[in-house]
């Protein structure tokens, strides 16, 4: 083990995941340091979401290890997996706000039920976070009246209300109208600047270039290349990476 490995907050070792016959992850390795922002890119269907969902055990890996804070998540019991909710936040492509409660109640639910926070404390925490994502005035509306960008910012605030150590993002902007992408990325960038550890699956190459410490390129069930954004985008080493980067550049032009 290198020195880096010892300091890693999350250490992924030979992670495999199959759905029936279909082996989606064929052996993922990688370390995520505290405070790092990792962007995961790759073609559609390459297993990016599956990888992310394994990190908080929404998906049970077939084999391999995920060492988080010194403990292997893949060996966790149901009870222990439930405690991950307080430590790993997740933001989904489709927001997944609870439509049957107000924005404030969406945010207060888990802190109260899982962390057993008092109502008043949960309200204070939630309002502070809503203020931070610029939506304080939306506290008492129902999610159906929010725009996509607002809904995604609320979803982020809801995850942050649990005060997690790590935030996972699965294509947080790909369900949004283009004019709303900016407001969501902005909040994510602020979060990164404050030192949050983040794993972001994204197609927003601009964001990856600007914010990521490391970009992981994923294809065919493996991480093909890990590098700084500058290196990976401008001087890709792996053939598959080159191909992918070229394709995006051509699309953008």
């Amino acid at each position, binding site marked *: 083990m290198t020195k880096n490995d010892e300091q890693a907050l999350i250490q992924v070792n030979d992670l495999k995941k199959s759905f029936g016959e279909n082996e989606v992850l064929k052996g993922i390795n990688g370390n995520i340091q505290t405070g790092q922002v990792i962007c995961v890119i790759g073609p559609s269907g390459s297993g990016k979401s599956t990888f992310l969902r394994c990190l*908080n055990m*929404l998906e049970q890996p077939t084999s391999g290890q995920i060492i988080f804070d010194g403990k292997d998540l893949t060996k966790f019991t149901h009870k222990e997996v*439930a*405690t*991950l*909710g*307080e430590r*790993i*936040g*997740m933001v*989904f492509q*489709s927001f*997944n*706000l*609870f*439509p*049957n*409660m107000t924005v404030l109640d969406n945010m207060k*639910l*888990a802190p109260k*039920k*899982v962390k057993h926070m008092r109502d008043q404390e949960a309200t204070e925490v939630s309002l502070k976070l809503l203020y931070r994502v610029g939506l304080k005035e939306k506290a008492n509306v*129902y*999610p*159906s009246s929010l725009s996509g960008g607002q809904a995604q910012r609320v*979803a982020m605030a*809801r*995850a942050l209300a*649990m005060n997690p150590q790590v935030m996972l993002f699965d294509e947080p902007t790909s369900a949004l109208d283009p004019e709303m992408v900016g407001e969501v990325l902005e909040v994510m960038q602020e979060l990164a600047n404050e030192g949050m550890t983040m794993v972001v699956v994204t197609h927003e190459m601009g964001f990856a270039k600007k914010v990521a410490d490391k970009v992981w390129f994923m294809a065919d069930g493996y991480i093909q290349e890990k590098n700084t954004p500058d290196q990976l985008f401008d001087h890709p080493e792996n053939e598959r990476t080159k191909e992918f980067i070229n394709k995006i550049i051509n699309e953008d032009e």
Partner: protein
Amino acid sequence: MGKSKLKTVMQLLLVVVIVGMGSLLARRPAHADDQSLNRVKQSGTLTVGTAPDYPPFEFQVNKGGNQEDVGMDIDIAKQIAKNLHVKLKIKNMSFESLLVAVQSGKIDMAIGGINPTPERKQNADFSKIYYSGGQDFLINKNDAGQIKNKNSLKGKKVGTQTGTLQQSLAKKDIPNAHVVGMDKTPDLVLALKTHKVAAVGVEKPVAQAYVANDHDLKAIDSGYKLNKNDVGTAIAFKKGNTSLVNAVNQSIDQIHKKNLIPQYLKDAGKHMKVNTNNTSMWHYWKYFATGVEYTLIISVVSVFFGIILGIILVLMRLSKYKFLSWPSIAYTEFVRGTPMMVQVLFVYFGLGVLVNIPALTAGIIAVSLNSGAYVSEIIRGGINAVDKGQSEASRSLGLSKKDMMASVILPQAFKNIWPALGNEFITIIKDSSIVSIIGVTEIVYELNIMRADTYRGVAPIAVAMILYFILSFSLSRVLNYFERRMNHD
């Protein structure tokens, strides 16, 4: 005789119920020390079952707004209770349920124009024959010129109650007759008046009662050759209750010696006059009020418990443990695969062997058990329709399965299924009519009593229809209102 109904369907249903109770009943020694008479005397009450929709044998009168059972059979029961020095308690139910009620010990005896056929004697003991009136035909007065007796009915349509003596007589003794079977006498009379049948075979006192109350009708003697012992009516008892049978036989002897039967029939006639003096539906509002009251009680309480049961069943079904999910699946499939009528009979008579449940409670239990199965399927559909992202978001936040269900999934599921639940409620209002079979005084039960009492075949049905419609329509309005209010989000 008149009401010796053996309708095949009913027989089948009763067989199912009896088979269901089989093992329980089998453990009870049928002919052990017979304490039946002592039990009645010790309890101080003689509980008699009857089906009061058969004037002049038994029917109901509207006394100061209250319904009261009267008629020849009721007078006989009163006399028996008096001779035994006990109080008389009358339990009303449908005719089909009387013999099962005797067998399961819900009542001490059943009286109701019951003909002691050989088949029935296998399942119950009978008293002596207390009445044997003879057979008549009811015809339209206008036809009196052509129809004189059974011989004039060759090749014509003859109405009888299904499975009765009259039916077998008509089939046997009228050449080429087309015998039409119906369930209830008022329906047959209606068929007669609308010329769907040429004559209706009924028992003599019944024919006379109709003629006295409807001047378009005429009663003629049937002309059947009858053996008095085959066609009389007797009282039914649980098998082996010999001491009680003997005591009742003494009372019947006494009634015959004093020649009380003609007097009883005359009194019954007077009561019928009172009934038919004022056959306006307004006069009978109390019957309908009772019917609506009970229909509502059954529906509301059953929906309440049905939803609770439905939630329990669906949570069991969604559990990862087989010992929870499997019984839930089995229960739901079983309930959905059996008619509610059989379920009602089973709860009342089958469970009745273990615990004595009153008819209303039994009806509510049966309807709730039934509804629970359907509600659980509705809720399951509603849960499946909730977006998968909702449970993923809940899990990613660390919510327990219980909190996720209670706060996130079920509230959304209920919003999805609100219209389906409303339909289930409306279905229950309509289907609750089935519990009339065990004598719960809901709308259909009251309707049948009233039709028998007033000799008006159609008007009560129309009123009942309107009542059902008002109930379900206002309910669906109320549900719509709440649905709209729930749609804020």
